[in-house]
């Protein structure tokens, strides 16, 4: 089992909370979390629905392994239709919130409609109620969590909330839980804000007593944990440097896009790297990094906890940012740093703290700011008051504009649109470094060719967490492939995409896949859940989830024509590094990819494929 077999349906318009049984037929086909919640969403919502209207829904979902002692078994996801993309959105988060939902007895929560005035959902085991959020509307996610603990006199309540960014309609607002873990991408916080839902607060004391075969499950999880310990990436690299272990590596292979992706190597990479976070600062002799930290059940512990130099210009008069909090991961260090050409580690950390506190995706923010900097440079913003001297490399501009975007003030309102809408508005859509409206993450697909295909075909817009071929092309996991070659990449991308969908549907973290394959996941799922789960059935499950998402996107109005990349990536060669002279050769990979997927030349799943996967 491992499911609680119970979901909570919250109608915000009516103000009702209604339990209902989990659809176990769907659970057998879609497992949980990403897969199962997507199934619920597509069955219940019109694909053409306006993502920010009351007719759309927002689902918070756990997987069967969430709340178990399987390593990293603490994940939850938010599934909805994304406002940036108009495509299916699924954002995954760690921390402790997902496990708490499970311990309260719920597999998922479906939010529908829109509340008349701000509310938060309070759950204590099987009791759930909507309460007024008037007092916390406008507060940061940090203050919201503290308020909830005080209001209910219980510091053990886990809270997931939006900040002012989500309330004010920043298009890439996120949902933050446990202070610095986030369902970060695709504007899921914007959707939550559109429903007047400020927070979900859960206290669960019931535990999880539904593992199918506890003894075999213990054997499987113990063996899998050993695999993580023995692997150099999950056993050493990630605990020591976090995902920031990649900064210098990706820069060296010439895939660290810089200054709105004009360059592929950043001269300041070393200063904002994982290694730099360990170095004592010249100013106060302390390193930026305080410690590493784990999410629930995680035996890797890649999380970064950082503390700023109190005398840094960003926080001199802001004691609320003097404490330790969630530090820079590779993506954030890249987007706030290399993408904007900024090498001030403290300023990036400050910007990251604000993104957590105000509930905003730093990847999309940094990339949007980079686009604005380029618009400014070419004179497209001459008639606009952008506040500071918004030029590449300015830590002052970064610090000031992250704050105004978080608070939706001044030019920050424009930055809150995301790069696609911003660049269209000012007449240069080609400067938006995005796919389907969602900004790129931190790997240049000129230097890592497989990622170009992964970005172009990702069901939620540009994303590294939908098919991370970097593992193979750069790190040699599970086998090394040439990052500059296109041969074989269609198959590689498909395999990564399908496997990832299975990991995401199980309730575990995709970072385990640096060490685990589905061969390591299958025994854990099989011992925990009803039914028979093998490597093959999980791979097929992943493929089914992928096609379900694709099918929804096609019905929502997207087509194969949207499986593309910005002109810059397809036509402007990399200027330096190993990929010098190369562009992203998407056209060489896409037709083969469609073929391998069992899709038509236009990128539509054929009847045969649909039948094979039971769609």
């Amino acid at each position, binding site marked *: 089992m491992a499911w609680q077999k119970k979901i909570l349906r919250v109608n915000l318009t009516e103000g009702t909370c209604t339990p209902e049984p989990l659809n176990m037929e769907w659970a057998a086909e879609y497992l949980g979390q990403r897969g199962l919640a997507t199934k619920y969403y597509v069955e219940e919502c019109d694909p053409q629905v306006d993502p920010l209207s009351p007719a759309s829904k927002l689902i918070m979902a756990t997987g069967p392994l969430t*709340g*178990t*002692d399987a390593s990293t078994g603490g994940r939850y996801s938010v599934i909805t239709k994304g406002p940036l993309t108009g495509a299916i959105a699924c954002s995954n988060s760690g921390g*402790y919130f997902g*496990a708490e939902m499970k*311990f309260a007895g719920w597999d998922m929560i479906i939010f529908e409609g829109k509340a008349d005035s701000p509310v938060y959902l309070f759950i204590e085991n099987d009791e759930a109620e909507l309460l007024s959020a008037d007092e916390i509307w406008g507060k940061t996610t940090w203050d919201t969590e503290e308020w909830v603990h005080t209001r209910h006199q219980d510091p*053990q309540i886990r809270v997931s909330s939006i900040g002012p960014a989500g309330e004010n309609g920043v298009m890439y607002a996120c949902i933050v839980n446990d*202070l610095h873990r986030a369902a970060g991408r695709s504007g899921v916080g914007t959707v939550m804000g559109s429903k007047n839902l400020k927070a979900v607060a859960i206290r*669960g*004391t*019931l*535990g*999880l*007593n539904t*593992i199918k075969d*506890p003894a075999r499950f213990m054997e499987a999880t113990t063996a899998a*944990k050993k695999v993580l*310990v023995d692997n150099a990436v999950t056993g050493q690299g990630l605990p020591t440097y976090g995902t920031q272990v990649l900064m210098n590596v990706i820069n060296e292979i010439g895939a660290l896009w810089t200054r709105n992706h004009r360059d592929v190597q950043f001269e300041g990479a070393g200063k904002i790297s994982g290694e730099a976070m360990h170095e004592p600062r010249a100013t106060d002799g302390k390193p930026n990094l*305080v*410690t*590493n*930290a*784990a*999410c*629930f*059940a*995680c*035996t890797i*512990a890649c*999380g970064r*906890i*950082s*503390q700023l130099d109190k005398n840094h210009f960003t926080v001199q008069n802001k004691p609320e940012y003097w*404490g*330790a*909090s969630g530090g820079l991961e590779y993506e954030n260090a890249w987007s706030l740093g290399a993408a904007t050409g900024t090498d001030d580690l403290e300023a990036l950390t400050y910007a990251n703290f604000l993104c957590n506190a105000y509930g905003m995706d730093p990847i999309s923010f940094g990339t949007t700011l980079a686009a604005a900097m380029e618009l400014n440079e070419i004179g497209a913003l001459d008639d606009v008051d952008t506040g500071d001297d918004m030029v590449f490399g300015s830590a002052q501009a970064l610090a000031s504009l992250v704050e105004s975007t978080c608070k939706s003030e001044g030019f920050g309102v424009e930055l809150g649109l995301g790069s696609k809408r911003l660049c269209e508005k000012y007449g240069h859509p080609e400067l938006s470094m995005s796919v389907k409206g969602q900004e790129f993450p931190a790997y240049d697909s000129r230097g890592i060719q497989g990622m170009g295909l992964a970005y172009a075909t990702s069901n939620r817009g540009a994303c590294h967490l939908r098919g991370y071929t970097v593992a193979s092309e750069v790190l040699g996991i599970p086998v090394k492939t040439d990052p500059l070659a296109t041969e074989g990449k269609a198959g590689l991308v498909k395999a990564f995409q399908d496997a990832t969908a299975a990991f995401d549907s199980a309730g575990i973290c995709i970072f385990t896949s640096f060490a685990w394959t589905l061969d390591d996941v299958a025994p854990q799922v099989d011992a925990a859940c009803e039914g028979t789960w093998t490597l093959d059935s999980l791979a097929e499950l992943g493929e089914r989830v992928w096609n379900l998402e694709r099918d929804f996107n096609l019905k929502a109005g997207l087509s194969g024509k949207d499986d593309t990349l910005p002109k810059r990536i397809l036509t402007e060669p990399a200027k330096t590094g190993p990929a010098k002279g190369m562009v992203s050769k998407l056209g060489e990979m896409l037709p083969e990819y469609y073929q391998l997927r069992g899709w038509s030349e236009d990128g539509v799943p054929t009847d045969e494929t649909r039948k094979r996967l039971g769609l």
Partner: protein
Amino acid sequence: MQRSLVVDPKKCTGCMQCEMACSLENEGFVVPSRSRIRVFAFHDEGRYAPFTCTQCSEAWCLHACPVNAITIDASTGAKVILDTVCVGCRVCTIACPFGTINYASNSGKVIKCDLCGGEPACAHACPTGAITYQDADQTGLDRMRRWAGESLSSATAQ
């Protein structure tokens, strides 16, 4: 030889594997709210600290119990609740200065760490060595070794 649970908070990452293992061992399933060991996060300092019963020699809980439901396990030195005797009066929870003995409303009894009869599940489950089960009389040995090493190297340098 008696052993003690030794906690090195610097090594704790806050993963909660100890809480899950404890509840699994003592309750039969994963229910961290009934774990006898709890992990605390001190967010502003970036610190985590697991905490549980230290098995006091003159245990407040044992002396406070009006029905003698708390006994000493001779092999481990653990103070152990006799569920058949405990009446759930909770006087022990008031007596314990450390808060490590608590009432469980599901059973109507109190619960505390009993060292799992000499094989504590939390120490076994801890992935970072933040919780270990060591010779009760030598729990300072690692720190002594560290200080010895440091003083020795500075003495040599001089």
